[in-house]
């Protein structure tokens, strides 16, 4: 009985979470422009979408910015994580809290303050500022993912590499990097998702020619919601979903065989109980 109630409850939660998205996806195939009447199935909106220069242009912007910012954030974040890992306890706590600030800070505050900073420094708002802004909020996610991997790593591994003849740099490349690679990858993928996703901070730091997709959609909806936006959102949803699945599957792969078996067994037991 209790179990049934639980299931219904979880079902309802998921329903409320995902219904809007399914309505949107359904609407992207709706022949009518109306959002309330279903007049037939069509791919028209997708076709139109791929002929809309503004949307395609901003999609390209979004992807380039996401890629550049994520690569830079991953490099910086990984180095930062290693630095933090090697700090004394007190310094470490302080530095970590400071680096997480961009996550905790309301986005609008980060956005406005970045804009003010760029203006004060006389950097023209555009690609550069967008990329800098995105790097700023992506770095903490990389740190957040790499640091636990460093902590899990046996400290002796690095020493073992030195012992076998590696110079410190080589030991780092051959042993430490492979060990923390899963964390780096997760950090990178998270950066990409957050960068594509970001609206508020981009809104304050973009220039006239450097609109990202969320900004373009926003300005389109201000006039009237074109079903093209539905189609675009559906595509974005599927892409993000795919990235999430890849992330989780690769994480599972990384688990040693026996651990995975144990996890599966535990899951089965939990399911039966």
């Amino acid at each position, binding site marked *: 009985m209790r179990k049934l109630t639980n299931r219904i409850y979880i079902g309802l939660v998921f329903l409320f979470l995902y219904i809007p998205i399914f309505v949107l996806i359904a609407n992207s195939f709706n022949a009518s422009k109306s959002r309330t009447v279903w007049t037939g199935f069509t791919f028209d909106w997708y076709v139109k979408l791929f002929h809309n220069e503004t949307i395609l242009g901003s999609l390209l912007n979004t992807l380039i910015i996401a890629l550049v910012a994520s690569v830079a954030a991953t490099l910086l974040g990984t180095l930062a994580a290693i630095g933090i890992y090697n700090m004394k306890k007190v310094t470490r706590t302080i530095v970590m809290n400071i680096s997480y600030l961009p996550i905790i800070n309301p986005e609008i505050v980060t956005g406005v303050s970045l804009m003010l900073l760029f203006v004060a420094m006389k950097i023209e708002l555009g690609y550069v500022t967008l990329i800098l802004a995105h790097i700023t909020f992506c770095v903490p996610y990389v740190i957040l993912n790499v640091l636990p991997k460093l902590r899990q790593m*046996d400290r*002796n*591994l690095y*020493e*073992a*590499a*030195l*012992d*076998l*003849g*590696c*110079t410190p740099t*080589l030991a780092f490349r*051959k*042993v430490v990097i*492979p*060990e923390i690679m899963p964390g780096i990858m997760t950090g990178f993928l998270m950066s990409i998702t957050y960068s594509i996703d970001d609206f508020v901070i981009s809104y304050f730091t973009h220039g006239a020619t450097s609109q990202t997709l969320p900004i373009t959609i926003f300005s389109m909806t201000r006039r009237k919601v074109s079903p093209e936006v539905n189609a675009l959102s559906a595509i974005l949803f599927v892409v993000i979903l795919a990235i999430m699945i890849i992330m989780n599957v690769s994480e599972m792969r990384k688990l*040693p*065989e*026996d651990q995975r078996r144990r996890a599966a067994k535990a899951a089965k037991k939990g399911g039966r109980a």
Partner: protein
Amino acid sequence: MDKNKIIELKGIFKEYNGEQVLKGIDLDIHDKEFVTFLGPSGCGKTTTLRIIGGFVTPDSGDVLFNGRRVNDVPPYKRAVNTVFQKYALFPHLNVYENVAFGLRLKKEKESVIAAKVAEMLDLVNLRGFEKRSVSLLSGGQQQRVAIARALCNEPKVLLLDEPLGALDLQLRKEMQIELKKIQQRLEITFIYVTHDQEEALTMSDTVVVMNGGVIQQIGTPQDIYNEPVNAFVAKFIGESNILPGIMHEDYKVEFAGDNFECVDKGFRHLEPVDVVIRPEDITICPPSDKVINGLVESVLFKGVHYEIMVRAYSDLWKIHSTKAPEVGSVVGIDFTPEDIHIMRKMESSEDYAALEHLNEQRAGTGEEAGTVE
């Protein structure tokens, strides 16, 4: 044995956060020797080993390799390799690549590497495991990979930090024998850290007993066991009866309320000493006025022998014997002058103070006076 000194430690001091961890370590290690650092947890064994490996720089003192000072030589340039306590195998590499790691760094030819890895895996009985992932190996197998990996570089000296610590008793015994065989076959120096005295005694050519950052005694296993220099070593190396005594003159000592003949000399008149008698050196005989008499308090079967506790006055004696007297009976405690080991009191040592304190406490509560395991 070849008496060439390969490693010398001279007056090594090391401090961590204001705490002196090593207080003047002086030690010579010879070529092809099996040396064991033995001591209780926290006495500085690992730190000493890490100084030899180059992972820790001493605050003062010198480390010499073949007579050359190497204090500032980094680990990757030293002719030593280490087997780490928790193996520290590279999880992202398989068995073959783990063992080949050092050779790859030296840019050896693939054929050379293959031959050497095969030889090493043969040595540690892991032929056929090349392609296995190291995280799927058992503890004993991982240990073997770690040994093969370290030996692949053909070090002059192999450092082993409690390499068998994580294995069960059966496997430990097997690996002890194998390690000893490997060392004799390769004819290289092993520096081995353990806190298991039995392991130290069975495997080593030389045992270095440490306590509180100070070397207590250096000697062959026989020396250490038969002639411990102080009560700490005696206590650490095996079960002992340690009793307070007074040296009256050469070859004459008073303890347990009586005067005894002994084989030690060179003490001051009426110098307080520790008297150590091993449980297996004592024989149980019928009570008489020629020996100490006591009441059998307990008899415990230990497999090879019985462990018999006998109370005589306030002292509780531990005796090992193959025959079991009856509990509650009165027996004689007999030993020869050769079985009596006289030791100077170690005034300055903190641990000795602790030992004393323990003895006093036991005496005070009428418990095991002077008997320490």
